C-alpha cells in the first residue's frame, strides 16, 4: 500500500507517479505544488476521477498539471474525490494531453507571444472564405491595436482557445501578426575618469601603492572596465574593494569616503 508518498516532480514525473498508482489500483489524493501554483488529482481504483488546478477542473486541469516540469507532490491514500470531473481511462488522458501539448507547440511556432497584435490581412487569401461564429467574435475585436491577451480578456475565454482560433485565422491568411519592438534599454551613464582618480586616492589611502592594481582586479571580478563601468555600479565596486581592506578602521574610513562620494555624484 502506497501511503504518504512525497517527492519532487523533477525526479519523478507526474505521468510516472500516475502509472505507478494506477498499477496498484490506488485510491487517494495527489497534492501538487509548483511555485505559487497548486493542484490536486484524485484517483479511484487507479483511475483519475477529478483534477483541480487552481480553479480549473477536469481534463483541462489534468493537462495543465501534467505539463509542470518541476514542483513537489504528495500522495495520501484513501481520500475520496469531492466530485467527478473526469471519466476517461488514464491511457486516453495521456494520449489527449500529448496531442494537446503538440498542438500547443505548433501554435507557439506561429504565435510565439500573447502580446502579439493581430490585424486583418489587406487581401482576402481566397475568393471565398468561411468564418465560424466563434471566429467572428475574435475578428470583430481585431483592430490592429489590441493584443491577443487583451482580446482574450474582452471575450472572457481561455487563452488557449483564442490562440487556436487565431492560429487557424493566421494559417489561412486572414490575419497578420505584429510584434511589439523591444524597448531599447536606456543608456547607462559611465562613472568616468574623475571617479577613478578619486577612487585611486581613496584606495591608496587604505591599501597603499597597489591601488591601481586593486581597482583593476575588482573591475575584472565584476566583468567591467574603466571605460564601461556605469555610475550605478560604483557602490558595488567600492564594496568589492572594501572587502580586501584588512584593517577595520581603514576599511570603515574607505567606505565612509566612498559613500559620501557616491551620494555627491548622485546629487550632481
Amino acid at each position: 500500500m502506497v501511503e504518504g508518498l512525497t517527492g519532487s516532480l523533477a525526479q519523478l514525473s507526474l505521468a510516472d507517479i500516475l502509472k505507478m498508482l494506477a498499477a496498484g489500483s490506488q485510491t487517494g489524493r495527489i497534492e501538487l505544488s509548483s511555485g505559487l501554483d497548486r493542484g490536486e488529482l484524485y484517483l479511484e481504483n487507479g483511475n483519475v476521477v477529478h483534477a483541480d488546478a487552481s480553479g480549473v477542473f477536469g481534463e483541462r486541469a489534468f493537462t495543465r498539471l501534467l505539463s509542470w516540469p518541476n514542483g513537489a507532490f504528495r500522495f495520501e491514500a484513501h481520500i475520496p474525490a469531492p466530485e467527478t470531473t473526469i471519466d476517461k481511462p488514464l491511457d486516453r488522458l495521456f494520449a489527449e494531453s500529448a496531442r494537446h501539448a503538440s498542438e500547443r507547440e505548433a501554435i507557439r511556432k506561429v504565435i510565439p507571444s500573447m502580446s502579439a497584435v493581430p490585424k486583418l490581412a489587406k487581401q482576402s487569401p481566397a475568393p471565398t472564405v468561411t468564418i465560424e461564429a466563434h471566429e467572428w467574435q475574435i475578428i470583430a475585436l481585431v483592430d490592429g491595436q489590441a493584443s491577443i491577451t487583451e482580446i482574450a480578456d474582452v471575450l472572457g475565454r481561455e487563452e488557449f482557445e483564442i490562440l487556436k482560433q487565431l492560429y487557424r485565422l493566421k494559417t489561412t491568411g486572414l490575419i497578420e501578426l505584429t510584434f511589439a519592438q523591444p524597448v531599447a534599454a536606456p543608456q547607462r551613464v559611465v562613472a568616468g575618469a574623475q571617479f577613478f582618480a578619486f577612487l585611486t586616492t581613496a584606495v591608496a589611502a587604505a591599501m597603499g601603492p597597489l591601488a591601481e592594481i586593486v581597482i583593476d582586479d575588482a573591475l575584472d571580478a565584476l566583468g567591467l572596465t574603466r571605460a564601461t563601468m556605469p555610475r550605478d555600479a560604483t557602490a558595488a565596486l567600492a564594496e568589492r574593494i572594501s572587502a580586501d581592506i584588512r584593517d577595520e578602521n581603514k576599511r570603515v574610513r574607505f567606505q565612509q569616503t566612498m559613500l559620501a562620494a557616491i551620494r555627491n555624484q548622485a546629487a550632481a
Partner: protein
Amino acid sequence: MERGLAQLGATPHVGGAFVCDNKGEVIVSSDPAVLATVTMSTIGREVGRAFIALEAAGRAAIRMELVYDTWRLFAHDISDAVVFVVCQPAADMAMVRMTVDVVVAGWRKDGDAQKRLARHKAVRRELVNRSELDNGAWLTWSMLESRG
C-alpha cells in the same frame, strides 16, 4: 544609535531601519517606524533564529537578504542584536551594506550604544528551546543541531 538609523534611512530607496535583540524586542527603530512594532519583533525573533540555524548547519552567516516583490529586507547580525533595513527593490544593496558596516562600526565605538545593546544581551542559542518552538521548527532545529 538613532543617528545611525537616520543615516541608513537617508540611503536612496531605503524605507527605514530597526534593531531587534535576540528575543525580538525592538531596541531602536527609525522615526517614523517603518513597520508595526509587533511585525518588527516577529521578524527580529525569526531572523535571529535563522542565523543560529545557519550556524548550526555549518553555514554561519552575518548577513541575510530577503527579496520580495515590492520590498527587500536586509539583516546584519551583530551577535547581541540584528540590524534590519527595509528597502525598495530599486535600492543599491552594495550601498546599503556599506552604510550598515559604517553605522555598526560607529556603534562599536559609541559607549551609549554599547550600554543599550548590553542591556539586551541574551545568549541566542539558549532562546532556541522546546517551549519556544512549534513542532516543525523544533524537529528542524534538532536535526540541524545533530548534524552540526
